């Protein structure tokens, strides 16, 4: 028996046999595509959003409702919300997977973050529809 801390192999399988099959989970490219497509969509959408928010400085609730009752503004806002929260949860997922190593904590963080993203997105969508419709 090797002393603790000393390099040792206490399994019958060879190192190569152990390492084999540990490659791609074959789920990465879908994640990458979704991340990049939402990114492309968010370039014009976020610029439009910044302009909209500047227009809404000092606005009343009626002004906000009036702005969002336009069909283009309502549609763009809904697309912005979906793209933003989808992009957000994909991005933060990678950050959590990179920096949280403990499996249980990692899983709970991912579940909490994804759940919170869905809740916030639904809240935003309902609010925008209530204002705009």
């Amino acid at each position: 028996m090797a002393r603790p801390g000393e390099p040792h192999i206490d399994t019958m399988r060879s190192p190569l046999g152990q390492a084999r099959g540990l490659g791609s989970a074959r789920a990465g490219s879908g994640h990458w595509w979704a991340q990049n497509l939402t990114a492309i969509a968010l370039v014009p959408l976020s610029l439009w959003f910044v302009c909209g928010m500047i227009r809404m400085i000092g606005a009343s609730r009626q002004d906000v409702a009036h702005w969002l009752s336009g069909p283009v503004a309502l549609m763009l806002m809904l697309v912005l919300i979906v793209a933003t929260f989808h992009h957000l949860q994909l991005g933060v997922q990678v950050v959590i997977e990179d920096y949280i190593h403990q499996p249980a904590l990692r899983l709970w963080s991912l579940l909490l973050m994804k759940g919170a993203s869905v809740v916030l997105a639904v809240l935003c969508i309902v609010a925008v529809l209530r204002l705009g419709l």
Partner: protein
Amino acid sequence: MRDARDALMVARNTDGKLVGRPLSPHLQVYRWPLAMAVSILHRISGCALGVGTLLMTWWLVAAATSDSAFAAIQWFLSSWLGVLCLCGWTLALFQHLFSGIRHLAWAAIYGFEKPEYRVTNLAVFAASAACTLVVVVVGLVAW
């Protein structure tokens, strides 16, 4: 060896003795070039924008709920803390936007050469600072 991944980290030397493979040095041994700063700022600004969505959600829900709820968020956003949040959020948005555009260019296999890299590092900082300044000035004038 508890984890199969450790299999790659143990090997035999020429004497046949089991040894741990050397590890590559981690972040702290490097000096801090601009490229590293832009890279980590992309993540930091992305996470900051995630926190910022709370503010957007609060604003939209308040506008859809009642006059008093909307008055509360408008009061917060016009306080010094609110203005600070909005300025920080604007900076994070533009930093992430321009750094993200560079990521999209890389995804299209464009801009990988070292001279281009140096220029785009600076361009990301310059563009985000300039756009933030414009938005803050226009916002203050419109206010």
